């Protein structure tokens, strides 16, 4: 009769899971993990970012396991993450040393190191390609690889940050160098006012839709003025851990793909103006999120009456797991509390 049921919960769950398997199966065609990892790589990036776990293969597995649901995939990775023991902490990564695959500035036409358009959907026409289902993946892949193989490789040079120049001029607000260990939001509860490290971690793991919407509200008038993207860079950074026998030495353990953004806003500097920087960095290629994060970082620094400027509002409500978990718990039975509510209502009417 009802889903709490007086009994039979166990059978109901088992049947529900079977039905889910039926929906998930859907067809005789299979999706291979390698294909998800590569052909749905932006989805994979987003899942890794919101889960706070960088593993393309596990992210692809998670996506496959839950019919491509963002929230469920993030959930699977996060839950898996809880079972892992932490053996090492990587050394601090300097993103100036990023191996760049894309880099643009909306502030200056010419920047040291140059703008690199890289791969972007920004200048594509969003027309559905009806021939896509006739595409021969293997052939196409070979063609592209042949083409790349014929090209002369270029030397990769390190690019200084756009903000470095402005900083030299003294136009940019400086954050004091802070070498204390960052607050780890996965190991301890957020405290308010929050450390900037806690803020940035929380934003980096936040739901993309949530922080994009918030950043949008700030741009539309529920926040400060329109910021300028000083620099958006996307590329690979190397991760190293200290060598256990000699702290001066480090061991290379791999690389991760990041998108990093610095936004500039005008800010008050006593009787003059200066530029304030908002910072965003996320796993993989997720530019809207990185920009949104930078916008919100700056709004939070600025403070004020709008939701985006309210630390508790922003940091407490953007975690995919927390928001989706709590909203979905509304589906759980509330018979006892509702009975109590009914009793309170009835008493006032007696």
């Amino acid at each position, binding site marked *: 009769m009802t*889903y*709490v*049921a*007086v*009994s*039979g*919960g*166990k059978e*109901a*769950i088992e049947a529900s899971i079977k039905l889910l398997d039926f929906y998930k199966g859907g067809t005789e065609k299979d999706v291979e993990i390698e294909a998800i990892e590569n052909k749905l790589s932006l989805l994979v990036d987003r899942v890794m970012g919101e889960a706070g776990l960088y593993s393309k293969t596990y992210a692809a597995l998670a996506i496959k396991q839950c019919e491509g649901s963002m929230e469920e995939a993030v*959930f*699977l990775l*996060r*839950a898996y*993450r*809880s*079972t*892992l*023991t932490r053996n090492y902490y990587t050394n601090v990564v300097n993103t100036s040393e990023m191996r760049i695959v894309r880099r643009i500035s909306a502030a200056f036409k010419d920047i040291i190191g140059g703008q690199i358009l890289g791969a972007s959907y920004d200048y594509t026409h969003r027309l559905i390609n009806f021939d896509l289902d006739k595409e021969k993946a293997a052939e196409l892949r070979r063609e592209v690889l042949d083409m790349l193989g014929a090209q002369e490789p270029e030397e990769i040079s390190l690019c200084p940050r756009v903000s470095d120049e402005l900083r030299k001029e003294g136009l940019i607000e400086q954050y004091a160098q802070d070498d204390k260990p960052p607050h*780890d939001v*996965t*190991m*301890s*509860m*957020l*405290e*308010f*006012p929050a450390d900037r490290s806690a803020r940035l971690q929380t934003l980096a793991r936040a739901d993309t839709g949530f922080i994009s919407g918030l950043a949008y509200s700030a741009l539309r008038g529920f926040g400060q003025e329109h910021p300028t993207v000083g620099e958006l860079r996307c590329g690979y950074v190397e991760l190293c851990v200290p060598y256990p026998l000699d702290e001066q030495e480090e061991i290379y353990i791999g690389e991760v793909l990041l998108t990093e953004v610095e936004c500039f806003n005008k800010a008050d500097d006593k009787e003059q103006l200066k530029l304030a920087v908002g910072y965003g960095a996320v796993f993989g290629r997720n530019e809207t999120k990185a920009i949104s994060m930078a916008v919100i970082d700056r709004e939070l620094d600025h403070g004020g009456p709008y939701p985006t400027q309210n630390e*508790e509002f922003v940091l*407490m409500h953007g975690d995919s*797991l*927390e928001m*989706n*978990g*709590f*909203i*979905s*718990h509304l589906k*759980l*039975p*509330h*018979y*006892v*509390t509702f*009975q*109590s*509510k*009914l*009793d*309170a*209502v009835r*008493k*006032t009417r007696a």
Partner: protein
Amino acid sequence: MMNRNYNFAFLDEGSKREIRRAALKAVAIPGYQVSFGSRELPIGRGWGTGGIQLTLSLIGPEDVLKVIDQGSDESVNAVNIKKFIGLCTDVETTTKTSEATVIQTRHRIPEVPLTNRQILIFQVPIPEPLRIVEAREEVTKKMHAEKDYAPIWLQLYESLVKYNKVTIASEYPCMVSGRYMMNPSPIPKFDNPKLHRAECLYLFGAGREKKIYAIPPYTEVISLAFDDIPFEKENFKGKKCRLCGSENTYLDEMFDQHGDRFYQCSDTSYCQEVRDYVSG
């Protein structure tokens, strides 16, 4: 059967130890919300992950576990949690309240009084009793520090002015040991008196909100009430369980196919025990 790919009780030992430490601190400061690094679980945040983390960190191979939701052992959520804990521990489970050493619950306290060899673990959605009057954690923390609970009393008074009754239904706030105001989780007011000077240990876990708190055995727990207006529980006067006939339990209101209303014990295992006893 236990899944050997995961550690006993799912979490790594370091995490379990950390959660136990938070629980110990909570026992040392009754009613105070201890923050902890809540871990993600394979069960949804908001679906009892605070309670489950406490259960996982405390449970040992010798324990006997009971899980209830809305008083029922058979509800889908209770079954689901039991199944998960079973997958990673293999501990014995029971529906009989008196047989269990660890009981995890959502929204109820069993009708049978618990003993000093039992722990009742509550799943808590919103641990902060002051949240209904103040949204900001930074402020509520300070209010607790200064024991500034006037806004809650005002809320009670306002409901008296408006409706001539205190209208807070479940999650009825109480004072623990005369110091901290505590949210007893969304149990009905009917269960609040069971918190007072109980023989067992009560632990409360809020996973999403990352808080643990406790009521140690024999602690004074007083539901808020004005001096001249006594605390009032839900009223089931003149009603009884249609299955076991109990008149002193919390009853679920139900309707049959013809739309006729009837009542049934919310605590299903108690109801069964009464029926078993009566039928000899």
